[in-house]
């Protein structure tokens, strides 16, 4: 029988917490770039002009249909040679997950925008607004409310996906756990604790998301199913 001993995990708690901080950092950076980029991609994809629609569609489809780990390897191992710029694991990770999450956020934005009734567009037109004004003043404010649940779900998915950065030696929680496990010869305890930390953070985040969702549902503004 294995004798559980969490002593070595406690002794290295600081390393694990630093890892968690790095996980939050890469998630936050990817969100900060991914959300605006996703909105831009969505607007391009909904544009009446083909020259805008087509490239946005390509980026969205490529990043949604290839495995994130392959994307990360491409950005970390291939891109620096191609553009002759050195890339730290953090930069490569942040870049990959910004674009990748943008592709997913773009679909969330698009779904939200499309869900706004045609009548709203027509009414805004009738009041003399152009495409851009209609979008900014009438459609987006309504769409953003409806998108919130899907948006939060995507953000939580993103945090889970950032564990892949451990494979390019960015010191996130998973990477730190692996290091501590090797150092202490206590993989069972260390990986179990790491899994629990992830669970607490992600489960907590999804509970908060559900509260938001319920509030929207009560106020009758939730995305119609």
């Amino acid at each position: 029988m294995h004798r559980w001993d969490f002593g070595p995990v406690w002794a290295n708690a600081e390393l694990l917490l630093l890892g968690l901080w790095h996980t939050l950092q890469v998630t936050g950076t990817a969100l900060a770039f991914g959300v605006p980029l996703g909105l831009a991609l969505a607007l391009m994809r909904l544009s009446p002009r083909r020259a805008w629609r087509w490239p946005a569609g390509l980026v969205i489809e490529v990043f949604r249909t290839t495995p994130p780990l392959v994307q990360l390897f491409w950005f970390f191992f291939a891109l620096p040679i191609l553009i002759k710029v050195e890339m730290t694991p953090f930069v490569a990770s942040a870049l990959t997950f910004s674009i990748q999450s943008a592709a997913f956020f773009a679909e969330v934005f698009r779904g939200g925008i499309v869900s706004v009734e045609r009548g709203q567009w027509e009414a805004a037109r009738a009041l003399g607004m152009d495409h851009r004004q209609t979008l900014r003043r009438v459609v987006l404010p309504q769409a953003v409310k409806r998108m919130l649940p899907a948006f939060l779900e995507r953000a939580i998915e993103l945090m889970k996906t950032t564990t892949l950065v451990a494979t390019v030696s960015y010191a996130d929680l998973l990477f730190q756990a692996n290091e501590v496990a090797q150092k202490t010869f206590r993989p069972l305890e260390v990986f179990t604790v790491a899994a629990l930390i992830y669970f607490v953070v992600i489960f907590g985040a999804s509970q908060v998301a559900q509260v938001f969702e319920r509030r929207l549902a009560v106020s009758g503004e939730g995305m119609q199913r």
Partner: protein
Amino acid sequence: MTYQWNFQPLLENADVLLQGAFGTLRLFAICAVAGLLLGLLVGLARSSPRRWLAWPARGFVEFFRNTPVLVQILWFFFALPILLPFEISPLAAAALGISLNSAAFTAEIVRGGIASIDRGQWEAARALGMSGAQAMRRIVLPQALRRMLPALTNRGIEIFKMTTLASAVAYVELLQQGKLLASLNFNPIETYTVIAAIFFLCLFPLVQATYALERRLGRGDH
């Protein structure tokens, strides 16, 4: 100077990639079957009025949905063998992690599908003298499965993408073989581009099929 693309070394090593593709397909087949079947069972348990069935199912779903799949794979590979008297192969660790993770997500799809069926269907089945299990099997589940189809194919696509995570425990699949070739031939650009292209070409038709399915069902009985 622009980069000179050269795909020759990859063509010469096509057999290495082919071996990887075989590994990817094998892992995908195992996880798709195990994940979907287990997900169906857990989803049914989760929908059950019996608490001793519903609660453990809920715990399973919440745990596996709220931890990253890569953490699960590494846990099964590095941590689980300490509790067991035998080693866990990279294939077993990856298959366990991906299957259980997918089962949790599938269970939620199944639960949602069952919940979406009108109460009247249950009542009509009961009025005809069917037991709860019979009503589920003959009336509710067939209708629910139809509605779940797009979400389930989406799951399948996700599973296919997830198989690349097995490279983290050195299971021989496409990305793992790509890593090997890129370091042997010093050509990461061509190698990872080709790997990405292979996945894209395999999955893009599936994604389009899912969209088509969604549209067709959207027009259907809702």
